[in-house]
């Protein structure tokens, strides 16, 4: 092909090599992080596990590690939904509210209305889809910013939850066995693994496959990266956005089931912090709040990092407020790293 390139002399070696020539060790690190955004959370997770392991003997006990995975399961699930939405340069403040609403609907239909448990779960899934679809329609049809839309629907869904449930908690013992089943555990090599944790892992496998290997996944990235460019390339931007919010709603419904198992109850007051925790997990996981960049596994790492920090600091005997402080610092660092990585563009 070199004989085809003619007249205005493109210098031998091209412009790309010019770019590479400018690279310093620091910019090489930046480019690596740019291409593989999950590197930094992976490093942080490994280092923090080692450090907390050295600080406290009990940290690395199988029982403690299994506790961390269970604590992380629900946030980890919502973080999948949150990742999808943040990849499209959106944000969803209503994930926790939707989860609580879905869990109350599942628990109440199964107990009060005597609906068979599988059907109750399907109804919960429908609630998730409706809530996600409502957010998606507001974002795509009314062209409202996702932040404002979900700030509004957060309150709407919380109010609906209280109206519907009357503020009453449904205990796991009252429910059919299938509902708290996600909280039951089995033992592998001395580690207790709950059904919910396995479901979370499967969810990550499925979503990461879809994002990386299908046209839909690529369109999600393209829409978040540059909406106008995506539209000009023939992608139906609104359809992609709506499908992302619907998918998020379905994933949140799964999270509701896992939550019921985890707490062995469905409580309208559960998950007050879980909105922000899911965003925290996504951001620490290296997904850019500006959209178009990140991988879903990063969010699992992010959720695990938060879980490890909270657990490790608690074992070290520090007050809860230091856990919160540490998480806050992590978020700031993660966003700073993201900004720095994005400068590659310039």
């Amino acid at each position: 092909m070199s004989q085809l390139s003619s007249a205005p002399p493109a210098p031998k070696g091209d412009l790309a090599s010019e770019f590479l020539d400018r690279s310093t060790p620091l910019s090489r690190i930046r480019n690596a992080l740019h291409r593989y955004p999950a590197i930094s959370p992976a490093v942080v997770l490994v280092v923090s596990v080692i450090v907390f392991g050295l600080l406290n003997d009990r940290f690395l006990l199988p029982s403690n590690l299994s506790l961390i995975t269970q604590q992380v399961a629900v946030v980890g699930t919502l973080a999948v939904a949150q990742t999808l939405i943040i990849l499209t340069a959106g944000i969803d403040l209503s994930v926790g509210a939707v989860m609580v609403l879905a869990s109350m609907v599942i628990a109440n239909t199964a107990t009060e209305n005597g609906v068979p448990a599988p059907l109750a779960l399907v109804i919960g899934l429908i609630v998730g889809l409706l809530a996600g679809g409502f957010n998606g329609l507001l974002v795509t049809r009314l062209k409202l910013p996702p932040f404002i839309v979900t700030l509004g629907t957060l309150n709407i869904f919380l109010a609906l939850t209280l109206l519907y449930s009357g503020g009453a908690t449904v205990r796991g013992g009252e429910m059919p066995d299938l509902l708290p089943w996600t909280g039951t555990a089995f033992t592998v090599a001395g580690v207790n693994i709950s059904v919910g944790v396995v479901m979370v892992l499967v969810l990550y496998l499925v979503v990461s496959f879809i994002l990386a290997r299908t046209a839909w996944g690529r369109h999600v990235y393209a829409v978040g990266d540059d909406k106008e460019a995506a539209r000009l390339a023939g992608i139906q931007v609104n359809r992609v956005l709506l499908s992302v919010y619907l998918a998020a709603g379905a994933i949140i419904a799964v999270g509701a089931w896992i939550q019921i198992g985890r707490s062995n109850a469905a409580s309208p007051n559960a998950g007050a912090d879980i909105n922000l925790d899911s965003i925290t997990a996504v951001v620490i996981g290296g997904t850019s709040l500006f959209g178009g960049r990140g991988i879903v596994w990063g969010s699992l790492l992010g959720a695990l990092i938060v879980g490890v920090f909270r657990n490790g600091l608690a074992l070290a005997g520090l007050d809860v407020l230091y856990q919160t402080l540490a998480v806050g610092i992590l978020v700031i660092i993660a966003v700073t790293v993201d900004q720095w990585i994005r400068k590659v563009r310039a």
Partner: protein
Amino acid sequence: MTVTDSATPTAATPQRTPILEARELVKTYGRVVGLDGVSLQLYPGEVLAIIGDNGAGKSTLVKCLTGAEIPDEGQILLEGQPVSFRRPQDARIAGIETVYQNLAVSPALDVASNLYLGREERKKGFAGSVLRMLDTAGMRERARQELTRLGISTLQDVTVPVENLSGGQRQAVAVARAAAFGSKVVVLDEPTAALGVRESNQVLELVKRLRDGGIPVILISHNMPQVFQVADRIHIQRLGKSAGVITPTSHDMTEAVAIMTGAATL
């Protein structure tokens, strides 16, 4: 309404059917007349430049040809067949691809993904039909072939994210996307407006290569030297009408500007 005579004999033989033809297009916006009976022919194997002052109807004309606007009157023929585009997507499906000045590529995606954006190919068999898996390796391979065919030697690594490329290379990706995969006509709307001199030259070189490779090009530009550098024929718009068609050999830049501004007529 003026019947514009644009059958000026040129590099393209007059007897040949135009690949893309507009007949007597009229487009009004309320009381503003955008196009007032404009005809245009694009022949196979040529670069047709469209020049004109602001408000002369260049963009309206191109928007009608690419489906972004629907003309009130008149006809558009592609390969001799009447077509009517309701949306840009229709024009694209028919084989008319447009490149915009604002480097419309997706920065975080790599070169191959950008070339195939919106028309991804899936694997064969179960993996493609049931699991909906993308044929990433195949698309990369074919993207490489297309770039080689188009003579874009600066973009051989199709796995590089587009944001790591220079402006000229990004525009090359956009042009390659338009020219690849059997498109019949490529429309470039001010493709060099956002680029520096050297990068502009790369894009213009690419325009020539497209033409030599058999894809006719419509080039909208403000930049006279660039137009005279690459165009085979130049369609001049003035006040919503066609002021005539010239060639870089029949007229010089000063004359072209004179016709464009109304100081001279053909």
